[in-house]
C-alpha cells in the first residue's frame, strides 16, 4: 500500500548506496549498468531455475519425479535436484562446438548472439515493480514489440546458416509463424493501449491500480475485452516464443531439432537461454498488460512488495506455459497459419470493437453497468462460437459402428 515503504524502495536504495561511492559524473552510468546487470543476473538465474522447474513439472505430469539427483557437488546432499542447471551448464560449456563445413559460419555464429541480444532488449521496458523499470519509455509497448519482432529473424538465420535441410524447413516455418502471429499479438494489445490511453508500460500498470468495492482488483483481464485479449495474447505469445503446441520450428518428431539441429555446446545453450528469456519477456508483458503488473491481487495484500507480486504472476504464467506444453499436441504449419488468420485475427478485431464499446459505455451506472457486461460478453461469445465452428468445420469426435 505504502508506495515508499522501505521494502518497496529496497532495490533503489541498494543501488543508490552502491553508486554513492562513485564520483558524481559516473553515477548515472553506473546506475544504469547496475540495473542492466541486475536484470540479466535475475533472469539468468530464473532461466536456470526454469529449466529445472520445467523438467520437474513435465515429469510430475507424466508420473515421474524428474531430475532430483544433482545437489551440492561433492556431497551427498541432493536438494531436489537444484544443482541440475549447474551440471547442465558445465556440460554445455565443455561440449565441442561443431559447425558444419558447408554452413555459413558468420551467420551460424551470429544467430544465437542476435537472438539473445534481442531477447534481453525486450526486458528494458517491463515494470518489474513499482519503482523498477529499467527504461521509462513513452512508447514502451511499441518498443517491446519492435525488439521482440526481431527474434524470429535470428531463428531464420540459424536455420538458414546451418545448411541442413531440416534447418531450412524450420527457417521457413519460423518465418511463416512470425508473420502470422505478430498480427494477433499486436491486435490483442491494441485494446489495452486504447483504454489505458497510453503506450507506456508503467502507465498501463497504474491504470489497473484501483479496487472494486475496495477489495477486488481492476485488472484488465477482469473485463470482457481484457479476458478475450488476454486469451489471444496468451495463444499468440505461445506461438511467438515457439512453445508447444506451436513449436514447429524445432518440431522434434518431424524436423529432428529444426533450426537447432546443427548447434551444439555453448551456442545451443545460448539458444536455449534466449528462448527462455523471450518467454519470460512475453509473460512479463502479459502480466503488465492484462494481469495488473505489479499490483496486488487483493487490496489488503498490498503490503507485500510489488516486485514479489510481479514475480508471482510471472511464475504463474510461466507455469501455465509449461502446463500447456505438457498437454497439447503440435499443430501443422497450415493449421497454425489458419488459426492465426481465420480465428485469432478476426477475434482480435472483434475484441477491438468490444473495447471501443466498453470505452464509450464507461459512464453507464447502476444496473445498466451490468448490461454493459452482458453486451460485451455476448459480442465476444458470438464471434468466438462462429469462428470456432468455422475453424473446426468437419472435425468432430466420431461414432463408430461394429461388425454384425
Amino acid at each position, binding site marked *: 500500500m505504502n508506495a515508499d515503504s522501505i521494502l518497496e524502495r529496497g532495490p533503489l536504495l541498494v543501488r543508490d548506496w552502491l553508486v554513492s561511492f562513485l564520483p558524481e559524473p559516473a553515477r548515472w552510468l553506473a546506475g544504469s549498468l547496475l540495473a542492466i546487470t541486475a536484470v540479466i543476473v535475475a533472469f539468468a538465474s530464473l532461466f536456470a531455475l526454469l529449466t529445472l522447474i520445467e523438467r520437474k513439472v513435465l515429469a510430475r505430469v507424466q508420473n515421474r519425479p524428474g531430475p532430483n539427483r544433482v545437489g551440492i557437488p561433492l556431497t551427498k546432499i541432493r536438494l531436489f535436484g537444484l544443482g541440475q542447471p549447474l551440471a547442465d551448464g558445465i556440460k554445455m560449456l565443455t561440449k565441442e562446438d561443431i559447425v558444419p563445413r558447408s554452413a555459413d559460419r558468420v*551467420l551460424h555464429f551470429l544467430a544465437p548472439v542476435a537472438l539473445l541480444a534481442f531477447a534481453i532488449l525486450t526486458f528494458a521496458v517491463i515494470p518489474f515493480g513499482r519503482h523498477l523499470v529499467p527504461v521509462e519509455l*513513452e*512508447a514502451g509497448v*511499441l518498443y517491446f514489440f519492435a525488439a521482440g*519482432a526481431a527474434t*524470429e529473424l535470428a531463428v531464420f538465420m540459424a536455420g538458414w546458416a546451418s545448411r541442413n535441410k531440416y534447418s531450412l524447413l524450420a527457417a521457413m516455418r519460423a*518465418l511463416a509463424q512470425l508473420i502470422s502471429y505478430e498480427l494477433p499479438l499486436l491486435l490483442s494489445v491494441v485494446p489495452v493501449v486504447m483504454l489505458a490511453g497510453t503506450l507506456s508500460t508503467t502507465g498501463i500498470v497504474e491504470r489497473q491500480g484501483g479496487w472494486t468495492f475496495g477489495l477486488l482488483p481492476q485488472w484488465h483481464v477482469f473485463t470482457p475485452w481484457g479476458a478475450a485479449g488476454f486469451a489471444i495474447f496468451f495463444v499468440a505469445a505461445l506461438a511467438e516464443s515457439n512453445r508447444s503446441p506451436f513449436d514447429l520450428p524445432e518440431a522434434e518428431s518431424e524436423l529432428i531439432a529444426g533450426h537447432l539441429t546443427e548447434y551444439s555446446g555453448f551456442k545451443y545453450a545460448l539458444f536455449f537461454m534466449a528462448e527462455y528469456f523471450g518467454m519470460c519477456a512475453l509473460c512479463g508483458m502479459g502480466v503488465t498488460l492484462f494481469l495488473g503488473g505489479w499490483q496486488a491481487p487483493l487490496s489488503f495484500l498490498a503490503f507485500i512488495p510489488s516486485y514479489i507480486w510481479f514475480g508471482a504472476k510471472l511464475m504463474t504464467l510461466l507455469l501455465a506455459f509449461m502446463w500447456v506444453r505438457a498437454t497439447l499436441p503440435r499443430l501443422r504449419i497450415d493449421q497454425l497459419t489458419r488459426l492465426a488468420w481465420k480465428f485469432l485475427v478476426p477475434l482480435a478485431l472483434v475484441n477491438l470493437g468490444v473495447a471501443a464499446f466498453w470505452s464509450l459505455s464507461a459512464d453507464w451506472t447502476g444496473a445498466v453497468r451490468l448490461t454493459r457486461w452482458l453486451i460485451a460478453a455476448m459480442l465476444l461469445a458470438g464471434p468466438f462460437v462462429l469462428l470456432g465452428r468455422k475453424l473446426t468445420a468437419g472435425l468432430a469426435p466420431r461414432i463408430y459402428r461394429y461388425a454384425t
Partner: protein
Amino acid sequence: MMALILIALVTLASAAAAMLLRNLIHSALLLTASWAGLAAFYLWAGAEFVAFAQVLVYVGAISMVVLFAVLLTRPPQPMPVTPPNTLGRALVALITGGAVLGVFIGAIVSSPLPATAAPAPTVSVKQLGLELAGRHAGALLIVGALLTVALLGAVVLAATDREPVGASLDDVRGRPPGTPLQKSGDAP
C-alpha cells in the same frame, strides 16, 4: 555529431554491401541491419516513435517478407555470376548514381542550411496521435484503405492453386521424378 557519422557509416556500409553481394539472403539480412541503422538514426534525431515503428515494420515484417520471397523463389540453378549486359548496366547505373549524388552533394554543400533547434525537439505519442487523428485523419483513412487493398492484392497475386491434398495419386505417380507439382493452368 560523432554518433550521427557512425550511424550513417554503418547504415551506408551495410546497404552498400547488401546491394553488391550475390547471396540474396546475405543481402536481405544486411539490408535489415541497415534498416535498423536507420532506426538508430531516428532515435538519435529524437523521433522515438518513428524509430520503433521503423524497427517493427522493416526489421520485423518487411525483412521477413523479403526473406520469404527469396526462399520461395529459389532458382532451379544458382544464378550465373555475371548475367549478360551486367557490366554495361552497372556502368550506366554507376554513372547515373554518381551524377545524381554529385548534384545532391553540390546542392547540399553550397546551400546555406541553418542548423537551428540545438536541443532536440520531442514529440509525445499523445501529440502524434492527436495529429494523426485530427489534421491528418483523411490521410490516415486513405493509408488504411491502401494497406487493406495492398494486403488483398498481395494475397490474390501470391495465392497458389495447389492440388487439393491427396486428390489424385495417379497424377502424382505418373509424373517423372523431379517434376514439380504444377497445375495444368500454369503451363506456359
